[in-house]
């Protein structure tokens, strides 16, 4: 079934975590939630693919986790605060992730923020 249109769909480059995205992303986000536990973080680092399989996420979501395809994770129902827990394991910042999602290097992204942030989108 097609996702019902919402007026916020017109906001460019923005993935509002509503009920429809929640339904798509429940298992993915709950897998990320489990990374709040240090023992689970170790398990994830040891065998990322197996960790994904044990949490029953879709093959598309698994591929996006393994490739750190942050935009694809948003499209597949990931919530930014949940999927960022994978970035924490990688030791990368929100500027890095923000840069990847918007097609910039981390340095370019940081400079944009120092210059007052993005205000043209």
């Amino acid at each position, binding site marked *: 079934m097609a996702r019902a249109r919402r*007026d*916020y769909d017109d*906001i*460019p*480059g*923005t*993935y*509002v*975590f*509503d*009920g429809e995205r*929640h339904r798509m992303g*429940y298992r993915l*986000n*709950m897998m*990320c*939630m489990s*990374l*709040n*536990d*240090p023992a689970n*973080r170790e398990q994830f680092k040891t065998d990322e693919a197996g960790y994904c399989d044990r949490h029953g996420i879709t093959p598309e979501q698994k591929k996006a986790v393994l490739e750190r395809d942050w*935009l694809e994770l*948003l499209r597949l129902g990931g*919530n*930014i*605060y*949940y999927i*960022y*827990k994978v970035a*924490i*394991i990688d030791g990368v*910042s*929100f*500027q890095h*992730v*923000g*840069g990847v*999602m*918007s*097609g910039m290097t981390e340095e370019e*992204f940081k400079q*944009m*923020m*120092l210059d*007052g*942030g*993005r*205000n043209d*989108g």
Partner: protein
Amino acid sequence: MAEVAYGVATSHTPSIGVAIDNDREEEPYWAPLFHGYEAGRKWIADAEPDVIILAYNDHASAFDLDLIPTFALGVADEFPIADEGYGPRDIPIVEGHSELAWHLAESLILDGFDMTICNHMPVDHGLTVPLSIMYGKPDRWPAKVIPLAVNVIQYPPPTGKRCWDLGQAIRRIVHDFDEDLKVAVFGTGGMSHQLQGERAGWVNTPFDKEFLDKLVDDPVALTRISHTRLLSDAGSEGIELVMWLIMRGALGRNVREVHRHYHVPASNTAAGLMILESEEHTAFL
């Protein structure tokens, strides 16, 4: 009797906490932000609130997608510091005020606000960074804290109008508590920012400055901003600003502005701080 005397609105960006924890406040990147916090720290050392009712949002720490309370009130005597994926921040445990919290929970529910009541509630940067901004690095937090977790992560968050009404109810209910307490209400999060999508890094300084102006003298106008406009103008995570309206609703009609500070950036966020004192010594309605 108890009284909501003070309001503090502040961003709660995690990297601000990291900067405080690692004594980086004077580094060139951070100094312009922290210099604007000095007046706030001086003010709170004099104001000395006994209790802080702190409206914040949990970021996948105490709550996950199995349980998403719109408004959750912490009634325990203490709240542990959450592990958000990095290990918990090395800061004092947060002490609650169980008696006032239960008074709030019972009275709010009877008043029509269907609060979720929480005992075990690890608190994350949404609650702890505002404490660090205002108090720095004490051995023990100088005030008791009643956590008021507001869902702003799962769409839809409560409306700005609902947050405003909740703040007004908090004002009345605190006033009915039979113990001399100076209470501060904190509204946290914001200001404009967007962490996700191709529009990550969004900042809207004109919107933020107007929001700060209206927070002082025309807050009702802010309660009419739709969620879609907040998402669009303040950014997908800027919608946290609804929590500032809980604070403002709790202060009554007339306030005195003590301090205002606005700085871009704190990592990916436009950081704001506003300190207000209530100028009314009776309940709002």
